């Protein structure tokens, strides 16, 4: 792919670097410069942020709004399998489900993407060819990221070469927590270059692993660092660390993408991942997108859910809304 799904012209590496220099007000982009900028961002008060998320969670989404929300959630799901036990068969089955989540209902949209480990990208690419459902690969020594940069870049290159449309990379949380921001920035820039190598254009999602960053201040700083390094999406979690996505963390990230667009004109997407299992929870995230970042983000190009079991609950709720009766779990496929 040479352009993004949105038809936006891509930022060149020079544009990204220039924007980072201009926003941080520093030509050097070293650790000191990053610390000055990132630690100068407004703080996040935890009690207030939790309270805001809790209030958004009280919105009552019913009838037509609920129907719209459920379909939108289906369209935003990155249907994910990230197990040591994954096989080509499992991935093919997941791909089929992503394309037609509800085989008896043509009005049910497809999911956004199938998200797999690197080695299963070829299987997914083959299964999804021509369907419009994207293939996302986790790369860069997912989930810990504890490998040399060379290994992480090779990991990325392999996934891109195999035809992945989207790369979900992890940041080096150790480097971030010890203040080596320049290293984190350079990592993202380098992975991004791999995503764009050889005329390809894989979307880059940067996983912050907010459960390990621990504070909301860190979430805001890591969000800005990733966006300034050229991330197309910022993503909460790998799903391998607890807590994974939470509503307040997602609200903080939505504030970051909103402010980033206001300042730079560049829109970045958000992907909460891990732990969102019910329609009710997912609808709270949509409400947060709507009221914090704004309706411009209410689209699979700008908001995704990383989830495995969420889709089944949404399908059951969809059916309940249409027929007035709940399906048992036996009426939706286990994968």
């Amino acid at each position: 792919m040479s352009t993004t799904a949105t038809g936006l012209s891509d930022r060149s590496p020079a544009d990204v670097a220039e924007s980072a220099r201009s926003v941080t007000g520093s030509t050097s982009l070293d650790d000191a410069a990053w610390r000055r900028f990132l630690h100068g961002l407004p703080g996040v008060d935890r009690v207030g942020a939790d309270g805001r998320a809790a209030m958004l969670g009280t919105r009552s989404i019913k009838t037509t709004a609920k129907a719209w929300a459920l379909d939108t959630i289906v369209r935003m799901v990155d249907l994910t399998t990230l197990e040591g036990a994954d096989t080509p068969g499992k991935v093919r089955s997941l791909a089929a489900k992503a394309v037609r989540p509800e085989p008896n209902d043509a009005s049910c949209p497809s999911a956004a993407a199938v998200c797999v480990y690197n080695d299963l990208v070829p299987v997914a690419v083959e299964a999804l060819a021509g369907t419009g459902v994207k293939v996302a690969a986790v790369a860069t020594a997912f989930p810990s990221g504890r490998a040399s940069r060379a290994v992480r870049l090779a990991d990325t290159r392999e996934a891109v070469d195999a035809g992945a449309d989207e790369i979900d990379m992890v940041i080096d949380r150790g480097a971030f927590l010890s203040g080596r921001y320049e290293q984190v920035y350079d990592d993202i820039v380098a992975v991004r270059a791999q995503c764009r190598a050889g005329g390809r254009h894989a979307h880059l999602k940067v996983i912050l692993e907010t459960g390990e960053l621990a504070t909301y201040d860190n979430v805001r700083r890591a969000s800005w660092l990733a966006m300034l390094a050229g991330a197309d999406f910022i993503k909460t979690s790998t799903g391998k660390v607890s807590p994974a996505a939470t509503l307040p963390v997602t609200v903080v990230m939505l504030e970051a993408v909103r402010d980033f667009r206001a300042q730079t004109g560049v829109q970045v997407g958000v992907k909460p991942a891990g732990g969102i299992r019910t329609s009710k929870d997912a609808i709270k995230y949509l409400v947060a997108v709507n009221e914090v970042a704004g309706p411009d983000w209410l689209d699979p190009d700008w908001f995704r859910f990383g989830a495995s079991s969420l889709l089944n609950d949404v399908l059951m709720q969809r059916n309940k809304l249409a027929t007035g009766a709940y399906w048992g779990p036996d009426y939706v496929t286990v994968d």
Partner: protein
Amino acid sequence: MPSQPSTTSSTSSAAAAAFEYAPAPESRAVVDIRSSYGLFVDGAFSAASDDGSFKTVNPATEEVLAEVAEATEADVDRAVRAARRAQDKVWGPMPGRERAKYLFRIARLLAERSREFAVLETLDNGKPIRESRDVDVPTAAAHFFYYAGWADKLEHAGYGADPRPHGVAAQVIPWNFPLLMLAWKIAPALATGNTVVLKPAETTPLTALLFADVLRQAELPPGVVNIVTGAGATGAALVGHPGIDKVAFTGSTAVGKRIAREIAGSRKHATLELGGKAANIVFDDAPIDQAVEGIVNGIFFNQGQVCCAGSRLLVQETIAEELVERLKSRLGTLRVGDPMDKNTDVGAINSSQQLARITELTEAGVAEGATRWSPACDLPSSGYWFAPTLFTGVSAAHRIAREEIFGPVLSVLTFRTPAEAVAKANNTPYGLSAGIWTEKGSRILWMADRLRAGVVWSNTFNRFDPTSPFGGYKESGYGREGGRHGLASYLIEGSTY
């Protein structure tokens, strides 16, 4: 923050087609509103002595909800006598541990019937169901739970070994938090062994009358709590009644002053919780997104009809422009409309008189040269409505910066240094509350030491808790409600050893 760039992605408009929240009305079937209500005196409902009554309306629709008896002087006298009898014979002599049982029972009944109370409060008052459901009713129950715990521990409260109740308390409460103010008044009075004659506001009597049913369920002895409905004349008759030992009033400073004059030289004790013109002070190192939420909650909670509302925003000049921009985009997402809809953020103004006052002061703001701004919002055609409003370019001399508006109107002023912020915040005849927004802990403490306000919130606003004393400096009144301090107003210190 610069304004949004005009060229965003081409998909934006398509995506924006979207998330319209469908109406999510709370059902009013959970509450039975009778067509008429009497006075609750000595454990039973009765008509006014002259059969007088008045109407209470739903301010969101102007629909008449019920006819309510208007108590005369004779009715007030009957209520005070019933309260005296109950105090002498039953409630005064009763051990604290027994009084506590009634209070716990009332608290539990309020919690169990919370939906009914929330719906009725919203219908009668106009506030969003989200607030009556999540704030008013649970906090009211919490007050009863809290003071129930004190009833058998009064000798350990710091008011001597044998603190005594005053006797009969006259309690006059406002329309902005009808049930919550009732709880603030009745819970400590009963815990300390006083009996009560309560007058709810004439525009919002219904939850107090439903509360009488809770008292019946709790089997509270007759006469311990009496509820007389009516307007100013009823309130004046109650406060002026010679059988009253203690007056507790929440309302306007003008009426508060009148009460203070009226009871001067008498044996009556008084606590007055009056108006406010609180400063919400935002420093340039504040957690900005939470500060925006706090400002919104500070002035648009309950349509700004809150005595401790953060109606003066004092913002450090370095971030004033950015903060106002952020505030404006946040106000654009406020959902104004049907208070019964669970997604409504801002409901109706309580009465046409209040709407007229808000309108008058807002027009004065424009006439004095301040810049008025409101988000685009469709207001319903019937009922009493006022769009969330923000004034910039406000000078400390403007009426909108000095007078209590008691509506959804925020005046934005700026400051340069912490000392200037303190001086401006304190430059008001009022002193009920204040807010400080900064990430610097030492500055919070420095400011809190210097602000002449009964409640100082740091990095939050409009948080209420039964354990925390609430009350004013200067013309915001005297006495404290809530916490251990709230007991003092209902006790005479004892010295029996």
